[in-house]
């Protein structure tokens, strides 16, 4: 085994080579992705059309963006169950600010981003300084964000937002949908943060051994604050895309998306206990999930059966990949 094969945290990516790739923690997620793609391609003619590929990527974008923040959080050994609810709340409030309060749309979107960031930071404060378990903190904020969104909107979706906002959801640059571009940009920023900055190393260190990180002088509480803040921010960014796709603020959107995002992260080879994993793996994991949904739909499989098949494929993919963890 080569030296940095198992690191997962190091992500030494100077120059690509096949051998290197095969020993990287991305190998298994990639193999999973390719296998599932080929299977879907065989089962359905439309699968490999450019059109459908863009279609899959566009569908993936919302969960894909949520999964970025989730990756940061999981790498530190935490979890964020509130992402879907925060996304719905931010979307609802942004739409409300445009429609009911008459704020200019860009301002409303920006305030939305700040709200997402704020909720994320609140989670971070509770986890870092309140020393409470992340799963409970974010479970509680998940319920609270859902409730607030419903209270604000009275349970109705909020429509009537400026039509140009649909650009975020359905616009294209060339053949590439705008949400896909946004997603890729967010992944690029995340990659740089994790692999090329001290903050990124501290994220991994926290997940590897929090006590050791703290005793050696890493500001563990600030790192935690930051990762939950990032997760709140990516939830808000996902809300912008979703609002563009749905052309309305939906207080009940995104239910269960937290589990999809977690699945994407873990399918991408990140250890659920933190400390090991690559952000590119998360992207692969998200696309893999998207392909499963899309492919099973394309094949016209009974929707109930889809759940069963999806579960089985996820198990299989993780089983094959388990050596790498």
């Amino acid at each position, binding site marked *: 085994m080569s030296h940095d094969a198992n690191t997962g945290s190091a992500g030494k990516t100077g120059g690509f080579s096949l051998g290197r790739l095969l020993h990287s923690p991305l190998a298994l997620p990639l193999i999973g992705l390719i296998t599932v793609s080929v299977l879907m391609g065989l089962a359905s003619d439309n699968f490999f059309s450019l*059109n459908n590929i863009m279609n899959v990527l566009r569908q993936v974008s919302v969960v894909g963006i949520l999964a970025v923040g989730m990756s940061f959080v999981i790498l530190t050994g935490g979890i964020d169950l509130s992402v879907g609810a925060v996304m719905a709340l931010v979307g609802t409030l942004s739409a409300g600010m445009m429609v009911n309060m008459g704020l200019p749309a860009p301002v409303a979107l920006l305030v939305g981003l700040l709200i997402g960031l704020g909720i994320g930071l609140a989670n971070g404060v509770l986890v870092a300084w309140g020393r409470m378990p992340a799963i409970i903190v974010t479970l509680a904020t998940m319920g609270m964000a859902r409730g607030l969104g419903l209270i604000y909107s009275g*349970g109705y979706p909020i429509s009537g937002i400026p039509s140009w906002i649909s650009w975020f959801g*359905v616009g294209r640059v060339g053949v590439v949908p705008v949400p896909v571009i946004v997603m890729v940009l967010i992944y690029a920023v995340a990659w740089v943060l994790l692999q090329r900055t001290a903050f990124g190393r501290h994220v991994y260190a926290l997940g590897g051994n929090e006590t050791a990180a703290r005793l050696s002088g890493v500001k563990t509480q600030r790192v935690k604050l930051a990762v939950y803040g990032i997760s709140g921010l990516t939830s808000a960014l996902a809300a912008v895309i979703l609002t563009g796709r749905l052309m309305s603020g939906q*207080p009940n*959107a995104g239910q269960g998306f937290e589990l999809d995002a977690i699945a994407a992260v873990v399918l991408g080879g990140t250890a659920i206990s933190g400390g090991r994993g690559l952000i590119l793996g998360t992207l692969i994991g998200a696309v893999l999930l998207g392909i499963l*949904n899309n492919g099973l*739909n*394309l094949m016209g499989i009974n*929707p109930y059966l889809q759940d069963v098949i999806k579960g089985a494929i996820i198990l299989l993919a993780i089983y094959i990949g388990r050596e790498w963890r």
Partner: protein
Amino acid sequence: QDKLKIGMTFQELNNPYFVSMQEALNEAAASLGADVVVTDAGHDVAKQISDVEDMLQQNIDILLLNPTDSAGIEAAVHAAKAAGVTVVAVDANANGPVDTFVGSKNRDAGYMSCKYLGEALEGKGEVAILDGIPVVPILQRVEGCKAALEEFPEITLVDTQNGRQDRSVALGVVENMIQSKPNLAGIFSVNDGGAMGALAAIQGSGKDIKLTSVDGAPEAVQAIAAGGPFIETTAQFPRDQVRVGLAMALAQKWGARVVPKEVPIDVMVVDAENAAEFSW
């Protein structure tokens, strides 16, 4: 002290359909000077039973029951009757000794929507059903729809997928549907929530696919009035359901002995022609 206390338990409250029901209930109760307790089961029968039990602890006089599941809620109906409470099922029926059931003709709704769709397609082409959460009213709409589609021999039902009555889920599902069925000409959605997602997907694809649905939600009516792929929704009358339901319960409380067991509320086709005037 002898203020009338009305409890209503909803299967969900993050759907405009039920929210408007709740609004009508509040208005009606205010005019009676009655207290209202409302709970949201979030599609969980077990929680709904608990909600009813909690209401019984509060000594309600009338229970308006919008069951998540007709069979599962039976225990709550028994408990309520045992506590001497008048029970009226609203929108979907419940098993057990319910005093009255007030609800839409869901089978008719599905039938009318799909009939409209079939006619709009001039009796031929591929259509798909966007299904929802498997509860009786939804299943009845699908049943009605299929019955209507069978009247058009040249129409084929090529796909059924589940959009879970959720706009974002339906959006993705319909996008995929359109990819896999390039000749798709029409979609029937079991409710307007799913239909709005389907509409976004159809518009995104730029294809000419006609869409019908059930409910009559404000957003859907607006979209129909604006023209485009969304051509029809078979409207229900949620506010009227509650009003009639409450009236039935009051009648019984006042001693009426021949309250009807079932009050079916008609449904109505809303299309581009009458959309402008329609609202719940």
